[in-house]
């Protein structure tokens, strides 16, 4: 405590008058980029969401609070709610599926053994693979006539083109993609569980599963919670998988929100409606982030 006061005092000693511009020059490059490509487009998106636009995305007719209000039109459209429903199912499955894979792989590599470094590298590896590249890989695995999965099952199912399997296909791919980050964070969490906890559980004669349930999982629950949030926010942003595997279809079955933004803007040229969808996406992610902060403040310990 004393040290930090000292440091602050030392810093105070070199304080310059307020017209000293040098610090702002150091910040200038970053602030310019943030201003032009983050703050400006953010407010521009909110602005656009209140208008009907022309084909080049210029705001033409102010429609907020009229019957043509972009938000109102969205809320009244069946397709929008279908998209919201699909998004939530997708996000839920990915968030928990990723967690289950991450937890399983972490528990499996908890103790060292010959080759455990290799295993750990394999589990972490998907962090390096691009979603586009993985999508092309899965396109081949799921290929209706020549793909691996149909070969193994002896079937000819069109996984990405069939309403029953399309969403499950992109969920599977996305879980595969996020398994690496889940593994890295959860196994890091496992390493931080104090050994004494296990020792006392062992003394009490608790078996393996009992220990996992009543020692491991409660001890790493902050990590698990954090990981669910990361998975959720990541899943809301998924695009490449949808674009490359299903194009939102068949029907609306894989029409997640980012895909619907893309469709509105770049296929239908309805930039106002796309902007309104973007704002809604932002609000959802914001709420999740706030929930995360709330829980972190409530004494979650890393």
């Amino acid at each position, binding site marked *: 405590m004393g040290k930090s006061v000292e440091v602050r005092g030392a810093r*105070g*000693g070199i*304080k310059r008058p*307020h017209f000293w511009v*040098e*610090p*702002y020059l*150091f*910040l200038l*490059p*970053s602030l310019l*980029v*943030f201003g*032009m*490509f*983050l703050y400006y487009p953010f407010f521009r*998106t909110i602005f656009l969401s209140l208008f009907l636009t022309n084909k080049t995305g210029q705001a033409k007719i102010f429609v907020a609070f009229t019957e043509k209000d972009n938000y109102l039109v969205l809320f009244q459209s069946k397709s929008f709610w279908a998209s919201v429903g699909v998004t939530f199912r997708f996000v839920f499955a990915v968030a928990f599926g990723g967690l289950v894979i991450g937890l399983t*792989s972490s528990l*499996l590599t908890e*103790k060292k*053994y010959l080759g*455990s470094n290799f295993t750990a*590298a*394999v*589990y972490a*590896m*998907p*962090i*390096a693979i*691009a979603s*586009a*590249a*993985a*999508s*092309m*890989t*899965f*396109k*081949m*695995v799921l290929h209706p006539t*020549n793909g691996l999965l149909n*070969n193994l099952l002896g079937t000819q199912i069109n996984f990405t083109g069939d309403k029953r399997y399309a969403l499950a296909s992109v969920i599977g791919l996305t879980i595969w993609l996020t398994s690496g980050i889940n593994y890295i*964070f959860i196994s*890091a969490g496992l390493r931080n569980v104090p050994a004494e906890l296990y020792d006392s559980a062992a003394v009490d004669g608790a078996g393996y599963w009992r220990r996992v349930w009543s020692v491991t999982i409660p001890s790493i629950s902050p990590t698990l919670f954090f990981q669910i949030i*990361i998975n959720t*926010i990541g899943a809301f*942003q998924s*695009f*490449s998988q949808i*674009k490359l595997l299903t194009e939102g279809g068949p029907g609306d079955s894989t029409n997640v929100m*980012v895909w619907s*933004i*893309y469709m509105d803007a770049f296929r239908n040229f309805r930039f106002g409606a796309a*902007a309104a969808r*973007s704002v809604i*996406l*932002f609000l959802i*992610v*914001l709420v999740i*982030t706030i929930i995360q902060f709330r829980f972190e403040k409530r004494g979650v310990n890393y």
Partner: protein
Amino acid sequence: MRIHTVQRRRLQNLGRFVLNIPLMLVILIPLLYTFSISVMPPDEIYGNHLIPTSVKFTNYVQAFTNPYYNFPRMILNSFIVATTVMLGQMVTCSLAAFAFSFLEFRGKRLLFLAVLATMMVPGEVTIIANYLTMMRWGWLDSYRALTFPFLTSAMGVFLLRQYYLTFAKELYEAAKLDGCSNLRFLGSIVVPLSRPALGALGAYVFLNTWNQYMWPLLVTNSRTYRTVQIGISMLYDIDAVSLGLMMAGVVIVIVPSLSIFVFMNKQLINGLMSGAVKG
């Protein structure tokens, strides 16, 4: 009793490895299968072989030499873009992090919050407005469009600032007394000392930029500026029958990503963890 435990441990170790095999296969098989298809002649792909009877690199040669795909150009584009963004972030984030950790000025807290707040906005939310900006400026189909929006990041500023805060303030005081300018202090003392943090940032940013898909898809139209992630999906669109060619493209694209994962594993994971913690 003691020997018994040792034996049981050994058995447990073996069991652990065996238990890991199914899940490892789930992760590895898609990639191994991709490689397998990429070296297969077409008749074996359509004969539903899983493993080629002989390894052929025809697909790779075709991917590289077919002038219509212009694949080498796309690889070059991705390298140019990823390197520019990486170096750009190293510079801009170092400068900003330096101001936030060593300098005192009005509005410091507010500006730092303004930087951190950008992490709350997913890129997909601003992507339309950014696209329209590029269109208005006539930047579509250019390296500018592919690089400029990513030349800084809150994660980079935050990561480097955290690192700089661990430096002794006496170092800065002493340099100042010797008449060392801030920029020189940053360049000749702070940057060399913060190599681990810069490495983490660099590996993470290069990989992320190399792996980008949505933004390059929107802002490039010509084969001259397409990046390689778009390229591999084009291999499919152009010629859906040449599955082998498509898989060769995927392997080519994954090699740099995997190289970073293997050779800069520690830096990458450090970067990833600091990136995810606040974003």
